[in-house]
């Protein structure tokens, strides 16, 4: 119970900060929309490339990538908030007062999730408004959002571990850059089968490739590599959970 009380308090405070501060709220909503517009709008002719076979069209194809990207960056942006809490000294006071400190990580996780759900709602509304076609059923779409949710938690735990080790906003690029790299080394613009050269080799071993390809399979009503995708996403979340908890212990030790 005490853990949940701590989590509730931390997440409410974090969400209050985000939703009352336009400079924090707007980028997390606008950037996914911007990427969606730039990719789905500007590159729509890519679906005419020989071998590109995605019956729902390029808008739906890019929607999946942007949903997963927004989930990951929702977690990273929450990591910035954790680092800010350490810089201001709030996190240290929190460590002193929280009876169950794992509730702190849980609270940050909840706020990352709510934040992403808001972004997801706006993004999905815009995508349907511009005529996105979805072949998958409600259950299949839920599969895509479940993958996004796990990715959101994994990214938050990664950023949380970094924030608790460095305890400064200057660690922002350390949180952000690896996530950016892993996302863009996946099949962003075309399916894996159409990638050529070195990027194909990198994408094949990139765990997010499975997640993105499975997400596109859900939207196309043609689920592919579902088990591998969930396994990859859960493995990332599990690994970063240990990373975050060890970060918490380091922050406790540092005082």
């Amino acid at each position, binding site marked *: 119970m005490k853990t949940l009380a701590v989590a509730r308090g931390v997440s409410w405070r974090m969400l209050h900060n985000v939703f009352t501060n336009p400079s924090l709220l707007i980028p997390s909503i606008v950037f996914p929309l911007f990427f969606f517009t730039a990719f789905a709008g500007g590159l729509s002719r890519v679906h*005419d490339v020989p071998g590109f076979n995605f019956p729902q069209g390029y808008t739906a194809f890019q929607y999946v990538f942007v949903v997963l990207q927004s989930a990951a960056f929702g977690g990273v942006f929450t990591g910035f908030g954790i680092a800010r809490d350490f810089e201001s000294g709030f996190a240290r006071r929190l460590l002193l007062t929280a009876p169950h400190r794992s509730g702190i990580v849980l609270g940050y996780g909840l706020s990352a999730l709510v934040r992403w759900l808001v972004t997801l709602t706006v993004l999905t509304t815009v995508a349907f408004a511009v005529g996105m076609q979805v072949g998958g059923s409600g259950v299949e779409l839920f599969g895509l959002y479940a993958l996004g949710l796990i990715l959101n938690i994994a990214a938050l735990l990664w950023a949380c571990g970094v924030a608790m080790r460095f305890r400064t906003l200057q660690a922002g690029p350390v949180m952000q850059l690896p996530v950016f790299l892993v996302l863009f080394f996946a099949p962003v613009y075309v399916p894996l089968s159409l990638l050529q050269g070195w*990027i194909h080799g990198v994408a094949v071993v990139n765990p997010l490739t499975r997640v993105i390809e499975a997400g596109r399979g859900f939207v196309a009503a043609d689920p592919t590599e579902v088990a591998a995708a969930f396994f990859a996403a859960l493995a990332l979340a599990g690994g970063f959970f240990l990373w975050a908890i060890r970060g918490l212990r380091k922050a406790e030790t540092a005082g």
Partner: protein
Amino acid sequence: MNSFVDQVYFLARRSVVRTARQPANVISPLVFPLFLLAVNSGGLKAETHLPGFPTSSFVAFALAVPFIQGALFSTMNAGTDLARDIQTGFLNRLSLTPMRRIAVLAGQLGGVVTMGLVQVLVYLAVGLIIGVRIASGPAGVLVLIVFGVFVCLGFGALGAFAALRTGSGEAVQSLFPAFFVFLFISSMNIPRNLMEITWFRDVATANPVSYLLECVRSLIIKGWDLEALALGFGITAVITAASLTLASWALKVRMAG
């Protein structure tokens, strides 16, 4: 006159040394555009199979992007450094000396131009190493260098204006996402005539960044396209003239205050 040249030289030297001493300011403008080039040219290579695509090499098509993206970084570097000079009081101390106002701006932009030249040479070298052949030949390479530096000057002056108006490095940094929007909603990844969505093509056509990209791209993949060159140099001249005018005015206001 000599005194003016000395003033510009010392401030430009200071600007270059200061940038060189901050690895993040040197590495980011070099590495990040090249990273985006690598990712996009790998991921979008299939686009060359579209009927009407102007080249069979997507790397050659995309090599224009680092030139313009690097110039956007110049805006940030120039603006942030100048904002720091304002915040630390360096500019106020300079205003007490007989230094001419325009030398402050020229010196700062001299540093930007030097860094711009380094960036352009690196992008060109990387392009040539990975097999891009410049269709306009050695003379085209020279024009590319001149154009790249010219664009850095224009955007650098814009960054200086933002710094002088706001006096805040954070405010200058906040311009970066706005510039990114201009870059992404342009002909960065696909020629305008191949854009399918009408409103996107219209926005890209109205976006001056499209013409800067197409100017660089024409020299790399087409040869000598006078229309693309005239549009690219013309738009850069307008941006540079407007930015320099605004920056000079903002400097006058700032140093009078």
